[in-house]
């Protein structure tokens, strides 16, 4: 008697949930760390002096020219070789955070540079210092500008979390493969995993649109 899909799903529910939980934590950590780092990258590219900008540019060009999988593998293998014992989870999150930072850096830079110069001049004209200008005039505008792209990057991180299965992190995709190795229902379970990823990412997309609407300036 062929096992029914629902029976199998129910049996595997804990495994699936644990995998999903790990996927979520990988993504969240990568997005948070990557965004913080990315803001520094973006600020350096926009306001830094020649040398800082050069160093940061080289950093982002190398990261963006390298496939994420290579970053993950490199992070995993190189860390153990140089004696920094990172478990696969940490190595993977590090790689994803670095990847995220290069994207967020570009986004922040783009957002800041899109603001017309007149805004800075008007702020100067009423006597604001640079710090005040950045905090009250530039950053709020840049934030609204790059919010959609940032939400997109967040979704990319969820998708990239699947790559950690290659280095043995038991996130959703690896767990799915484990389940399939037991019950051979690859069609159903890959499909199910795909559906879960779709729901999460689609949810992020919708949430992003909602935040965009809520923070939009009336015109």
């Amino acid at each position: 008697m062929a096992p029914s899909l629902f029976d199998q799903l129910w049996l595997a529910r804990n495994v699936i949930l644990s995998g999903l939980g790990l996927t979520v934590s990988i993504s969240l950590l990568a997005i948070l760390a990557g965004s913080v780092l990315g803001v520094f990258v973006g600020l350096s590219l926009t306001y830094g002096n020649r040398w800082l900008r050069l160093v940061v540019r080289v950093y982002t060009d190398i990261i963006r020219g390298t496939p994420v999988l290579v970053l993950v593998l490199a992070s995993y293998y190189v860390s153990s070789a140089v004696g920094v014992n990172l478990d696969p989870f940490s190595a993977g999150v590090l790689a994803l955070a670095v990847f995220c930072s290069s994207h967020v850096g570009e986004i922040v830079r783009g957002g800041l540079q899109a603001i017309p110069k007149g805004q800075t001049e008007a702020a100067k004209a009423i006597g604001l210092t640079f710090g005040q200008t950045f905090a009250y005039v530039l950053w709020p505008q840049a934030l609204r500008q790059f919010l959609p792209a940032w939400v997109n990057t967040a979704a990319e991180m969820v998708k990239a979390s699947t790559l950690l299965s290659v280095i043995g992190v038991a996130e959703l995709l690896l767990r799915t493969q484990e389940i399939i190795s037991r019950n051979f229902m690859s069609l159903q379970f890959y499909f199910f995993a795909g559906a879960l990823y779709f729901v999460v990412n689609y949810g992020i997309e919708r949430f992003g649109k909602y935040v965009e609407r809520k923070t939009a300036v009336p015109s």
Partner: protein
Amino acid sequence: MGYTLNFAVVWRNFDRLLEGLALSLGLAVVSILIGAAIGLAVAFALISKYRAAVWPATVYVTVIRNLPILVLVLFAYFALPQMGVRLDKIESFVAVLAIYSGAYLAEVFRAGLLSIPKGLTEAGLAIGLTPMQIRSTIIAPLMLRNVLPSMSSTIISLFKDTSLAAAIAVPELTFEARKINVESFRVIETWIVASALYVATCALIAAVMRQVERRLALPR
């Protein structure tokens, strides 16, 4: 730290890496060409006035863009056989990357199509061209010039996605690098070289795309 850099092992196996890179490029070129054809058709469907065309196109783009490509790759190679579709590694990867590319390029092309003034279509109709002729001789060529910049970054991104083929043991660059890494334990050197090859190739693709842009640019 006790790790001294020694690139000799990597240089000895450099030809394997280059072969892997060649395969990566091959996979990319074929997939992107097919993907571009799919994307163009889907883009026209997305802006069509017939709901029957818009709806499936939207579903296709939305679903693919929200799925991790690795899941698609594994699904195509491991799950499809259960439906009777048996593809070898390279065939299944190319099929996946083509479908994946199609969804992303469709969005790029759609933006390009929307930026073309309606008046051009009307002018074409006025001289008696069929909608199909208008699309192929007027709209598509113009749109292509408009979208070259964003298409360039999409293509580079899709090229990097060929590294996913390593997950199903296709002997492209990442797979070969990993093999060398495991055989030789020269981890830092291997990954530096592999990364350098990818970065260089991406830069090359970008330069080529800029040239294409220049060549196709309309005289001013």
